[in-house]
């Protein structure tokens, strides 16, 4: 099954995230991740949803999103024409015998160490989902203590925009 990424512009009002996420639950659509944040206009937020499914499910999701009163704009993003990023914060054990290997991985992945303590290292990494997954796999043998990732945000290349006001 393909993964689809949908950009959704919503009114920035109380409860809007519940309405959108509730719709997915209620209609039985499974999602990989959902992120929400501010946009260039103060009255609007942007939600990015990623899910796996076929063309029919994608169409149903778009239609159901468009029915929500607070939803202003819905667009299925073409992956080839879209910049997709995710942020990872990961805490691994800081041991003398593995420290150098971790540093090498951090350097090659263009990650950053953002906290250093006697027993733990916190690395930060931004990238596409596949790169994040590869980095996590690489760090597993060194002892992952804790990790969190933001889920993806996505924006189209070029001058195509998901307009907040039409």
């Amino acid at each position, binding site marked *: 099954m393909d993964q689809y990424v949908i950009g959704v512009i919503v009114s920035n009002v*109380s*409860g809007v995230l*519940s*309405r959108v996420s*509730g719709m997915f639950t*209620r209609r039985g659509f499974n999602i990989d991740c959902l992120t929400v944040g501010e946009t260039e206009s103060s009255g609007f937020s942007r939600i990015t949803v990623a899910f796996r499914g076929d063309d*029919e499910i994608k*169409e*149903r999701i778009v*239609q*159901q999103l*468009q*029915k*929500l*009163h*607070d939803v202003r704009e819905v667009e299925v993003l073409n992956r080839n024409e879209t910049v997709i990023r995710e942020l990872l914060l990961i805490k691994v054990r800081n041991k003398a015998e593995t420290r150098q290997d971790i540093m090498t991985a951090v350097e090659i992945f263009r990650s950053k160490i953002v906290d250093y303590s006697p027993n733990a290292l916190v690395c930060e990494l931004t990238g596409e989902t596949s790169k994040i997954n590869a980095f996590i796999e690489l760090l597993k043998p060194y002892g992952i203590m804790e990790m969190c990732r933001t889920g993806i945000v996505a924006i189209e290349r070029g001058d195509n925009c998901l307009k907040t006001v039409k």
Partner: protein
Amino acid sequence: MLISGAKIVVETLIEQGCDTVFGYPGGQVIKLFDELYLCRDRINHILTAHEQGASHAADGYARATGKVGVVIATSGPGATNLVTGIATAYLDSVPMVAITGNVPCSLIGRDSFQEVDIVGVTMPITKHNFIVKNISELADTLRMAFKIAKSGRPGPVLVDIPKDIQVAQCEFEPKNQPVIPAPIPFAPDDKLEKAAELINAAERPYIYFGGGIISGKASGELIALAEKINAPMGCSLMGLSAVPSDHPLFLGMQGMHGHFASSIAEDESDLIIALGARFSDRATGNKNRFAQNFKIIHIDIDGAELHKNISADLGIKGDIKDAVARLAELAEAKSHTEWQQRIAELRNEEKLRTEKALQASYQKSCENCSNSCGRNGLSAEQKLRPYDIIDIISAHAGDSVVATDVGQHQMWAAQRYPLKKPRTFLTSGGLGTMGFGMGAAIGAAIATGKHTVLFTGDGSFGMNLNELATAVSQNVPLVIVIMNNGVLGMVRQWQTLFFDKHYSNTTLARQTDFVKLADAFGAKSSRVFSKDELETAAAEAFAYNGTYVIDCAVDCDEFVLPMLPPGGSIDDIITDIK
């Protein structure tokens, strides 16, 4: 002019053309009810026995008139008692505005007395809902609620108003007209042309319509299309009353308990033209089998319905009235002689099967009946079969609005009652809410000011019979026909067919005397066993300008037929039960 939030609510309701509201007072709407008292000569409040009854009454009022129904309840339990009514309206696309009080903003989120997050609770069963925390937004929020409720595919909207907002003062500018619904998109030309091509090429077209024809006021256009292409029409439960029952091209409801000819014709057709209907599982049965033999054109105002339950060959989003009118222009006139011959055969077969089932039922002994219906002494001709009850009542009822509850009686009424014009058959189709009928019938009777008929069962009636108090106190002209078989008949029918006659909790064994009960509530009543008795009671009931309960004895083993088993298909149709 500086006025209170409560007054803003009442003034905005009046501004939106609302002359009747249904509700129940309580601590967090006491200020709102004070304003209703002060404005009682401009807006009529109907007090019910329970908030659920009020929500169904607002729904019935909306279904009978096409206007937005309004219901008011207090916070907490008042608000949660509306939930079933709101969900009923949501599933059947009925325009409704529900107004609830809530605790003052400063107490929200603290589990205060009678506090509930009704916006959270009703999010999945409303088109949209609001909580107003700023009085300056109150009037526009209410206007938006009306706009959303009646725009596009209609539905319920809830506005939650904390008590301090009702008390606070704010400037109010009345508008000189109600909000106008959002413009409806029209179906694109190229798609309608494609649809016309499919229709022109079809040899056995079948029109399947739903409630969208009624809310879209498209009955005339639908009939014109059907007559031009000479196609038979069938409908979903929600589509009933859109077309006169005696229209020569109308085969009746299709689906699980649809007419034999209607369901078979649908299956034998080569093109389904679905108009304002949504292919519910009760209408289609097994979806894989359903779409086997025919192509489907699906036209609906709600784009999310296209390809949701059934993959249509051509899905068209647009205003149904406009789309059907343009389609009728584009389509070629046809006679479809062979197809109409086949339809005539099917109608004939349906008639024979119905007659056979009827005779079997007249001959049947009632000895095993758990209900002491007292019919054993009657001659076969005098026994009351469900269809006889419908026939006798309809002969007296004229053009009355008919409401139903949910169960066997609902299906018998749907199959048999001769309907003449739109908005005269009010039934809970999507949610299947037992207890819907009393409130809905009261709302319709108040809206039309005329006799309204309620068909109910002893099970459904038991759920909200407290609203008899409302009917009597409002002196509502209501004829309540209880098909009393002493059992929860629809579930019993399933138990007979699919659960080895394990009648688990469907035999009521109640000793309720509905005549005494009606008397206690101040309504007139009679209990009838035979056709003659029902004739007498019906004449009396329709001559009486008030609420009249007719308690009809019905055999507990009467079945709703035909039946397509749940998840089954047309191949499994059951037309008689040994």
